Every structure is written in structure tokens, then in C-alpha cells.
């Protein structure tokens, strides 16, 4: 019975993850082989050509995306952590309205922001700039980070911070020496999700960069697909490389991922 369930489970996973296998398989095939009438199910005539192409043409884009993602993590946490502390631990009037506002702004479709940010950024010279993209990507990560961190910090007993303040520590010292260390896990989760979001962002990347000075990897793949879709092995090799952060995170930080995923939906 139980072994049977495991077998079914393995089958389900195999079917659902087949596209990923197919991506890896295609990434190792020579590009001509991909245009044959019937596909090769295994990369028997395996080649690293695709990866050579991917690194050659998209390597810089991967690096750009790393910079943007790290920048977004930093900006998001710097802005979100103090706000969460105030919302969770300090008696701030209007806290509920602020939380509502943050929930609401998450609903705003990105295309609307892109539309107006494009014209504003054009005037400010922020098109094609890392800072511009980091600030734009943060629109998706900051509300999420605040809500997630606040949910965690609410559960930190107030006596803890109050005791610290009685000892003469100011709000900022309490924040830095008590709250932040306690919230380490929540901060990691918020940081991880900020990284993943910025890494995967396509909408802002495609509207707010022209490809002149740098291109995030998502745009790189999009233009790669659009320009030479017969180079599927190169596209798929790039896709594999672009999936690496997600895969790594899943392996080393799974509990944070699940924590972040459920925090938005399941009550604190």
C-alpha cells in the first residue's frame, strides 16, 4: 500500500517535472538535432555547444541579473525591516491602514507601473540603469517583505523590546540588537523571495532597458527566443543557467521557501 503510493508519487512528479527534463535534454543536444522530425529522448550525442553559446552571449546578462537581484534584496530589506518593526511592535496610529495599503498596492498590475515609470525614468535618465531597475523591482518585493516581516515580528513578545527600552536602549538600538537578530529567519525568507522575484522579473526588465548597456537574463532569453528559435539548444542552456538560483535555493533553503510561500496565504 505505502510502496504503491510512493510509486504513484514518483510518477506524478516525473510527469510534472518532465518539462524540466526536456529543457536539460535539449540544452545538451547539438542544435541541428533539434530540428529533426522526431526528437531524441536522451542527449546521447551530447554536446556542451549550447552552454558555450549561452555563456558567450548571455553570460553578461546573468551577471547583470545577479547585481539587480542583490540590489533589490538590499533596498527591500532596508526599507521593509524598520517599517515592519514599527507596524508590529510600536503603537503607531494608522497601522491597519498602512497594512491595507500595502496589500492593495500588490494588486496593481505591473504593466500600469511600467507604463508610467517608463516616461518618468526617461526624463530622469533612469532607463538602462541598474538603480532604476532595482527601484522598480522593489515595487513587488517591498510590500511583500513588509507584510511577511510584520507577521513574524507581531509574534515577538512585546515585553522583550519593552524590557530593552526600560534598560535605556532607544528604539533603534532595540531594533538592531533585539528585533533584527530574533527575526533572522524571517529576514532570510524575505530576502530570498526578493532575490527570486528580481531575478525572474521580465516586465520591468523589458520595458525599462533598451539593451544598450546591459540586459537582465530574462530579457536575454526572450530576445534569444525571438531572434533565433532554431538555436533551441542555446536557449535551453541559458534557461538551465537561469534556473540555477531557484534550484539551489530549493535545496539549501527549502524551509524558508515554504515559509514565505505560505505566509501570504495562511493566517499568522
Amino acid at each position: 500500500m505505502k510502496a504503491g503510493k510512493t510509486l504513484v508519487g514518483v510518477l506524478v512528479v516525473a510527469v510534472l517535472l518532465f518539462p524540466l527534463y526536456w529543457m536539460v535534454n535539449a540544452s545538451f543536444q547539438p542544435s541541428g538535432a533539434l530540428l529533426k522530425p522526431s526528437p531524441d529522448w536522451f542527449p546521447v550525442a551530447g554536446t556542451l555547444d549550447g552552454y558555450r553559446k549561452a555563456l558567450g552571449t548571455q553570460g553578461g546578462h546573468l551577471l547583470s541579473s545577479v547585481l539587480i537581484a542583490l540590489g533589490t534584496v538590499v533596498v527591500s530589506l532596508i526599507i521593509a525591516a524598520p517599517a515592519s518593526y514599527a507596524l508590529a511592535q510600536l503603537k503607531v496610529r494608522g497601522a491597519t491602514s498602512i497594512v491595507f495599503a500595502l496589500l492593495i498596492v500588490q494588486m496593481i498590475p505591473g504593466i500600469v507601473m511600467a507604463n508610467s515609470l517608463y516616461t518618468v525614468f526617461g526624463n530622469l535618465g533612469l532607463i538602462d540603469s541598474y538603480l532604476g531597475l532595482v527601484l522598480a523591482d522593489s515595487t513587488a518585493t517591498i510590500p511583500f517583505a513588509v507584510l511577511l516581516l510584520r507577521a513574524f515580528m507581531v509574534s515577538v513578545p512585546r515585553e522583550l523590546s519593552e524590557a530593552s527600552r526600560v534598560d535605556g536602549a532607544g528604539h533603534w538600538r532595540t531594533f538592531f540588537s533585539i528585533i533584527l537578530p530574533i527575526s533572522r529567519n524571517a529576514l532570510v525568507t524575505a530576502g530570498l523571495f526578493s532575490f527570486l522575484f528580481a531575478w525572474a522579473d521580465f516586465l520591468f526588465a523589458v520595458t525599462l532597458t533598451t539593451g544598450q548597456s546591459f540586459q537582465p537574463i530574462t530579457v536575454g532569453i526572450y530576445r534569444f527566443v525571438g531572434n533565433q528559435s532554431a538555436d533551441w539548444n542555446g536557449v535551453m542552456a541559458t534557461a538551465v543557467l537561469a534556473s540555477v538560483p531557484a534550484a539551489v535555493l530549493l535545496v539549501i533553503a527549502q524551509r524558508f521557501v515554504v515559509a514565505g510561500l505560505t505566509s501570504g496565504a495562511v493566517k499568522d
Partner: protein
Amino acid sequence: MTLTAGRVSPGRRRTGYAGFAFLAPVLLYVVVFFGYPLVANLVMSAQDYTVRSFYTGQAPFVGLANYAAVLANPLFTTAVLNTVLFTVGSIVFQFGIGLALAVFFSGRFLGSATLRSLLLLPWLLPLVVSGAVWRWMFDQDHGVLNALLRLVGAPVPWLTSTTWALPAVIITNIWIGVPFNLVVLHGGLRAIPATLYEAAELDGAGAWQRFRHITWPLLRPVTGIVLMLGLVYTIKVFDVIMVVTGGGPANSTQTLTTWSYALSFRDFAFGQGAAVGNLLILVATGFGLLYLRSLRSTLAEAAS
């Protein structure tokens, strides 16, 4: 947002000032990066913002002309219909499959936790990557799906036919969304006390009856939230459609989001693009408010 500052009367405790200092960055950010774009978009939708506007910096005020043009465009109906079909189709299947898998994986068996976490992968990948992979699998002549379909019958013109392209992007989006539904619903299932099931089993309830009378009602709150979140996020999906079909062929997969993009960034009719964007906001916030109502009570008590 100055209201918040204004409320801090001199009589209030120090906390008021400190609270504001802690909140200032986020408030400033919200005003600049959410408030301003929303207003700018409203203004732009009432302007004839064209290629020339970029050089001269001038865009004449045209009132509701952009909205009129958008509504009169035959693409409007297509885009609305596609948005509805895409959203409903995605959510129904994401939820259905996610729930089935959640129930399946809630049974403890060898490797269930590992397998479940492997299933997270599609959700963590950049959407552009998933889109590219599916686009390749959907390829008319060289795609793996048609290679399989040729074994059992006729291949399907996934991305080259106006009838199949929308199902193709919906399938892609379902695949992406199943893990999210699975994990959240699984969390909800775990919260249901096992004793209830044991008691029901003693009373002779079968698997279906246990699902129907215990699982389903007790899962309701989580279900509501998952569906609402799904709705809000699916309505504005952009990446998947752009990579898989680009809105084509013959606009058969154009949704309000991709259409707004095409109007602004392909045709440089930013006024009309903004108008479509604002219509999209109306729809999204409509659903958003519903979602918030379902959250309101929990939040109010948490925030107090």
C-alpha cells in the same frame, strides 16, 4: 501620507515620533513608486501621448478619447474574453490539481516530503524560463508534444492556430501555478486535526465522505484565500503569454495586460495603453477588495 505625521501631537508618547521615523522610508517609497505612477497613468490616459510627445514634451489633453478608442477597437472584446478565459481556466485547474495532489501527499509515505518539495520547482523558476520551455515543447513541427501526439493520432497546431494558442498558454500557466496551490492547501490540510478523521473512520465514513464532510468544510478559509490570490495574480500575467505566443497568432492570446503593453511599447500609443491599464486596475482591485474583506477580521485583530 503627511496625515500620519500630522497626527503625532506633542502630547503623544515618544513612540509616535519613532514610529514615524521607522515608517518614513516605506511611506516615501509607496508614494513615489505606487502613488505617483497611478496618478501619472490616469493623467496619461487622458492625453494624446505619441511619438512626438517624447521630443516636444507635450501631449494634448483629449479627455476620454483614449477610452473611446480602446472600447471601439475590435481587440477590446477579444482581450477581455481572453483575460476571463485565461484567468478562469488557469485557476480552476491549478486549484483542482493542486488540491488533488495536496490530499495525495498529505498521506504519509516513503519520500512524500521530498517528492512534494521537488514539485515546488516549476513555481520557483523564472516565468520566462518556463515559457521558453513550453514554447519549445509546443512547437508545431519539432515539439515533443506533437511528437507524442503523432504516435496516437494527429498533431495539434498549438501555437499556430487561433483556437489552440489560448489553451496552450493556459496549460503553461496551470503547470506554473499548481505548486503554489499544492503547498498552501497542504499547509491547510495539516492544520486539520487527525482525530477528526479517526473518529469519522470509526463511524464508518469512506474516503469520499471524509473529504466531503471534514476536509472540504475545514479547508474553506484557506481555499478562499488561495483562489483570491490566484485570481489577483493570474489577471495580470504577462511574462508567460509574451514568451509563449507574444499575444498571437492573430491576437488570439492577447489579454488586457499584453494588449496594454502592445499599445504602449509597440505602437507607442501610451495614452491608450494607459487607458487599458486603468481598466485592468479596476478589475484587479475589484477582486482585491473581495480578498481583503476575507482577510479583514484577521488583520484588524493582528494589527491592533
